[in-house]
C-alpha cells in the first residue's frame, strides 16, 4: 500500500457546526474526502464515518441538547498516517465512567447508550476530556496504515 505524505495535503479541516443533525452528513462527506488516497476499502471507510457520525450526534444531542445557540467544533486531520478527529461541544459535559455497558444483559433492550460503544469498536482509540469553560471533547484516532478491515467482517 502506498501511503500519502505524513500529513494531509490540505492541513486540518476545522469546522464550527450549528447543533443540527443535518450537519453530520456534510462532515462525513468532508472526512471521506480526507480519507481519499489512503487505499482504504469501502468497509473501513464506512466504519470510520460511522464513528464520526456517532461522535457528532453525541455532541449535538447529549452535549449541546440541540440548542442552536451552541456550536459543535470539529477538527479532522491525518498526521503520520494517524487519522485524528476532535469533536468538542458546548454542553455541561458528562462522566465517561457513568456510560452504561450496552452489552450488559440489563441494558440489552435500552433504546440508547450504544453510540460511544460503536465509536470504541470502530476506532483505535477514543478519549474524553472536559474542556475549560465547559463542554466535552472527544478525540477519535485511527491508524490508516494498519490495513483494511476485512470485507464482510
Amino acid at each position, binding site marked *: 500500500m502506498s501511503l500519502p505524505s505524513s500529513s494531509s495535503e490540505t492541513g486540518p479541516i476545522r469546522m464550527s457546526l450549528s447543533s*443540527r*443533525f*443535518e450537519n*453530520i452528513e456534510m462532515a462525513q462527506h468532508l472526512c471521506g474526502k480526507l480519507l481519499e488516497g489512503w487505499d482504504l476499502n469501502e*468497509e473501513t471507510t*464506512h466504519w470510520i464515518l*460511522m464513528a464520526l*457520525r*456517532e461522535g457528532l*450526534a453525541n455532541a449535538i*444531542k447529549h452535549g449541546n441538547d440541540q440548542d442552536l445557540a451552541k456550536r459543535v467544533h470539529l477538527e479532522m486531520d491525518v498526521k503520520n498516517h494517524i487519522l485524528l478527529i476532535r469533536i468538542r461541544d458546548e454542553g455541561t459535559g458528562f462522566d465517561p465512567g457513568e456510560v452504561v455497558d*450496552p*452489552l450488559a444483559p440489563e441494558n*440489552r*433492550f*435500552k*433504546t*440508547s*447508550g*450504544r*453510540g460511544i*460503544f*460503536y465509536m470504541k*469498536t470502530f476506532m483505535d482509540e477514543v478519549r474524553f476530556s472536559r474542556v475549560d469553560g465547559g463542554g466535552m471533547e472527544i478525540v477519535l484516532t485511527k491508524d490508516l496504515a494498519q490495513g483494511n478491515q476485512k470485507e*464482510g*467482517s
Partner: protein
Amino acid sequence: MKTTVREAAGGVQIVDLKGKITIGAGDVQLRETINHLVEAGKKNILINMHDVTTIDSSGIGELVGCYTSVTNKGGKLKLLHLPPKINDVLTVTQLITVFDVYESEPEAVASFA
C-alpha cells in the same frame, strides 16, 4: 426514509423501509410506523431492511424499542433482508440474537403462523 406497509398472508404486516434510519432522519418515523400498527392491533410485523442504506446507534435503538413495543403487546417483530453492515452493527452489540432474521419473504411470513 420512506416507509410502505403491506399486508401478507395471515395478516402479517410487512414494513418496507427505504433510505436512512439515523438520528433525525428516519428513527422517529420508524417508531411511529410501528406504534401505529401496534395501536391498530397488528401483532405480526416483518420489517424489510433490504433498501436501508445507513443506520446509526439511534436507528438501532429504535429497532430495539419497536421490538419491545410489539413483544409487550404479545406480538412478534422480525427482520427481513438484513444488509451486511446492519448485520455487523447488530452483531457487535449482541443484538443479532434478539431478532429473528430471514432472507426469504415467504419463509419469514410463514414463520409467524
